[in-house]
């Protein structure tokens, strides 16, 4: 039944203006950021003078582009996920799901994958940028592959936190804010390393913070600890979401 819920959620996303409005805002913002990166790149080349193209790496544009998209996801994912469970609880349509012969996992996963799909759909809209850079003469495209892979992992984790936030309140604005705070926290945990000199703390917060893993994957260095981080974080958030749904029986 996960698929039934998945397709129903997708239908509801795309029948309402939500997915289109968020996609449009996302595309315009990312496009504007990309345009600015190109302008900056050209300005830097012109400042150096003839032969400057070889001295300034194109990779910086790509990294900053993925960094910007990742920053936007901080806002986009809570917007996409805030109503997933909270509005169902508020309008009591959750009873349709509760009374059906399905497990709470199927409810959580169906909704989760639908939100991931919509987020990936938005990411697909940015595929135009590698195409533009290809025609501009960029030959090494491996950065794009690793960058998109890092975004994909981030989307998996952020969306699971979004689903969790949506389970925590019947008010979708509150759910959205909780999701935003949790996603923001994954970033901020890395910053804690700057205020302590304790080796163990630094190592711990380096690991549980997102930055290290995002940068690592985006640079094409994918190791088991990154995969373990993303998948265990995602699984944990979904598990807690399921527990919250199941709390009605406590």
């Amino acid at each position, binding site marked *: *039944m996960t698929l*039934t*819920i998945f397709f*129903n959620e997708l*239908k*509801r996303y795309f*029948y*309402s203006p939500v997915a289109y409005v968020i996609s449009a805002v996302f595309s315009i913002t990312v496009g504007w950021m990309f345009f600015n990166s190109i302008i900056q790149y050209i300005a830097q080349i012109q400042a150096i003078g003839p032969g400057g193209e070889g001295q300034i790496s194109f990779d910086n544009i790509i990294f900053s582009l993925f960094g910007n998209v990742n920053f936007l996801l901080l806002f986009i994912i809570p917007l996409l996920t805030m109503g997933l469970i909270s509005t169902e609880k508020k*309008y*009591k*349509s*959750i*009873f*349709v*799901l*509760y*009374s*059906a*012969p*399905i497990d709470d996992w199927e409810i959580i996963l169906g909704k989760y994958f639908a939100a991931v799909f919509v987020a990936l759909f938005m990411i697909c809209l940015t595929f135009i940028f590698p195409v533009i850079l290809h025609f501009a003469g960029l030959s090494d495209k491996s950065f794009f592959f690793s960058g998109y892979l890092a975004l994909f992992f981030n989307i998996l984790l952020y969306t699971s936190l979004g689903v969790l936030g949506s389970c925590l309140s019947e008010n979708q604005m509150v759910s959205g804010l909780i999701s935003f705070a949790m996603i923001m926290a994954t970033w901020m945990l890395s910053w804690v390393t700057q205020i302590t000199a304790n080796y163990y703390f630094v190592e711990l917060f380096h690991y549980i913070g997102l930055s290290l893993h995002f940068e690592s994957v985006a640079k094409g260095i994918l190791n088991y600890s990154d995969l373990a981080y993303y998948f265990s974080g995602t699984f944990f958030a979904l598990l807690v979401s399921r527990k919250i749904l199941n709390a*009605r*029986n406590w």
Partner: protein
Amino acid sequence: MHAVVVDKISRSFGVNKVLDNLSFSIKEGSIHGFLGPNGAGKSTTMKILSGLLAPHSGEVKIFGESLTEHQKKVKKQIGILPDELPLYYDMVVSDFLHFVARLNGVDLLLIEQYVDECLKKTGLEENRGRIIGNLSRGYKQRVALAQAMVFKPKILILDEPTVGLDPNSVKEIRELILSLKKDHTIFLSSHILSEVSLMCNDLTIINRGKIMATGTVEEIHQQFKTKNILVCRVHSISHLEKIQNLEYVNKLETKQLSEHEYELRVDINSTNDMRAELSEAIIKNKMGLLTFNEEKLDLEKLFLEVIK
């Protein structure tokens, strides 16, 4: 055979014990009424029966199978219309019913047929393409009822199905529920006692989480009969004092209905059945017995008596 057997279920919310050792059963093919004042635990019971909530103790059996142990299998046999309508207001009526049918395991090849039949039964055919949020209150209620029955469950649990509707819609929904009796066992809660007395064969009355009475309406009448009053109509009241002086008569009231017809309201000071003795006394005194009835409490009085 019993469609539902509720065996000593209890449920608390925090320190508040909402249901306390509740036991009753629902006969297959009947419309079973569920009455109780606000906060009595009706909605909680209905949610437990449909698997929306789990009891903290006790067991619910649906056609002999435990709801907790065989939840997936048993839930397919139960459709619920909760007190708050479970609707996706942004969805189109037919899409919503397709979704509910699929969710409840209806085969893909049969879904269209099930949805069509359900739309026809609930009078929603003309509204199948409309967005639920744009429908009137009465039609939303119909859609909510349709979602409970679209996958053809054997048991329908209806929590106050006519609340908030205009009189015309109330009449239509009642007729619809009565028409569903042939295909479903119906468990219905309502605040409207006349509705329950019109529609239900059996009754369970609950108060503060405890069963006050359960059985047929007649059985409950017998159980809670506090006064034994016999009402008869006679031609003449010429020997009225002889009736009044009978040792088992507590009080006698007379009312003239027409020139040769009187109504006697005899309050019997015993809970024993004195109909034979009283009718014999009336005939013996040549008062011309026309009709003879036992006065029954109407459902409203009975309900108040039970929850007292």
